[in-house]
């Protein structure tokens, strides 16, 4: 490269990873030969029907699931366990600790690291406030709405300030309106967050609204069917012609795989 600088190591590299599970009805190949590179500050969506293994792929990046084939490189080093300094997760149902207030949930990871109490709280408040949760820090998850809970979960993930953020259908359990609003909100903060994000969803809408790249996965065994770059500027007008074209194209692919997943070949 001109100037003598070496190319930066991509935060995530997946080299032909695969995973099989033993179930009572025989072995199941959840993921087969998935290769992908995620660049710094890139937002990649894994899109596909239920059961296509996208959550498993996320689990492998997070170091919670060991691949049976291939390997996962996080920041250049092979991944063999959870990597809390590099990878943060947001789960579909939040995974908030019900006995801790919103603030204490956000500080959990910092507690594990031994960050002193005052600093932890400061960081947590700094994260909750721009999310519109000022005044709710002392509430328990039970007292918060679904959308608020997911925001707390995202704040908790952001608290560790990792270069990589993994989100597994974070808005899946929310109702339609809240989902749309949360999507808009996420677009708003993604630029400021400056992280490599891998986002799992089965919603085309979310994929188009948020991503730099969309990876379409096949039905089980999950393989990469197609990778589509989305270069439209943010925020994206979902009625623009390029978007409707893209959506049609995506739907055609996803529909085929969804039918396969449901047991009817196209």
């Amino acid at each position, binding site marked *: 490269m001109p100037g003598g600088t070496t190319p930066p190591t991509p935060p995530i590299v997946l080299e032909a990873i695969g995973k099989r*599970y033993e*179930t009572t009805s025989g072995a*199941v190949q*959840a993921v087969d030969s998935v290769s992908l590179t995620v660049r710094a500050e890139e937002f990649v969506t894994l899109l596909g029907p*239920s*059961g296509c*293994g996208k*959550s*498993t792929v*996320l*689990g492998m990046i*997070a*170091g*919670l*699931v060991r691949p049976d084939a291939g390997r996962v490189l996080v920041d250049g080093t092979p991944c063999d366990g*959870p990597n*809390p*300094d590099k*990878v*943060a*997760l947001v*789960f*579909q*149902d939040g*995974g908030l*600790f*019900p*006995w*801790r207030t919103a603030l204490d949930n956000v500080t*959990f*990871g910092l*507690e*594990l*690291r031994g960050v002193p109490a005052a600093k932890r709280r400061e960081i947590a408040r700094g994260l909750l406030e721009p999310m519109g949760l000022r005044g709710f820090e002392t509430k*328990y*998850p*039970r007292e918060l709405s*679904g959308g608020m809970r997911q925001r707390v979960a995202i704040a908790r993930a952001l608290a*560790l300030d990792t270069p990589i953020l993994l989100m*597994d*259908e974070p808005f*899946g*359990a*929310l*109702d339609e309106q809240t989902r749309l609003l949360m999507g808009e909100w996420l677009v708003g903060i993604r630029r400021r967050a400056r992280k490599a994000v891998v986002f799992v969803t089965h919603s085309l809408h979310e994929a188009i609204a948020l991503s730099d790249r969309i990876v379409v996965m096949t039905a089980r065994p999950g393989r990469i069917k197609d990778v589509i770059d989305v270069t439209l500027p943010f925020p994206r007008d979902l009625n623009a012609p390029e978007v409707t074209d893209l959506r049609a194209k995506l739907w055609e692919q996803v529909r085929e795989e969804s039918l396969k997943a449901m047991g009817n070949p196209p």
Partner: protein
Amino acid sequence: MGRLINPEGGSRPPSGPPPEDKVAPAKPALEAASPSRYGRFFDSRVGVLGAQAASIAAVVVAWHVAVRTGVADPLFVPAPGAVAGALGTTASEALPRLGDTLAKAFLGYALAVSLGVAGGLLIGSRRLVHAVAMPYVVAAYGVPKILVLPWIALIFGLGTGTAVITATLFAVFPILLMVAAGTRDVDPTLITAAVSMGATRGQVSRKVLLPAVLPSVLAGMRIGVVFAMLGVLLAEMFAGTRGMGFLMQRMAMAFKASELFAATAVVSILSIVVVLSLEHLNQRLSRWR
């Protein structure tokens, strides 16, 4: 993805579509807040308490009248006045015995809590242990423990040992079952979340499992109190020379009706107070549920 890791080290296939119960909460059943047909007074707390007090008073009055008019034989059913009087006369004998009973119950309870919580955590956290041990635990729970009491009395005699052991035996099962159930029910996503943030095994146990399991432990402990007292009293009635149970048996055999009623009332009220306090404590500790 929360289901991908489970505490015992195996792994399961990924979960399917998102759960539907989040979309709309279940509608409440028939207990809607419709007003009372007997008048608005009974909708309020004061009204209810008043009705309760009035009912109790009415029972006492009817009881008094029944004894006075000879409908109830005072040999078997003492007059309320006589019972109140008996409270005074038996106090000197009854109170130390009550203290004795409570001390034994407390000892048995402490043992039962230690064994029950430890056992419950063990059984609830390991699938194999659970599957193997549970039928035996449930069977032991289903067998009336009174059947074992003569044997315990045979070995440990007529004293404190028998009472404490019986109390432990009675109280340990409900505690163990509740703690085991609570441990099994811990949401695996919470553990996954903690592990993904870098928690060590010790940290997971202390910061996730313990708080998650605490409500079940407390519930078990609340139930255990009554069972421990039950065990002690039963042991005292069957094979005791001290303690409240023995005293009450003796009063019954001697047809000392007023004294017996008084003693029964005292122990009942004591139990109710203890259990209500524990309930209150539980409410205070469970704000997050």
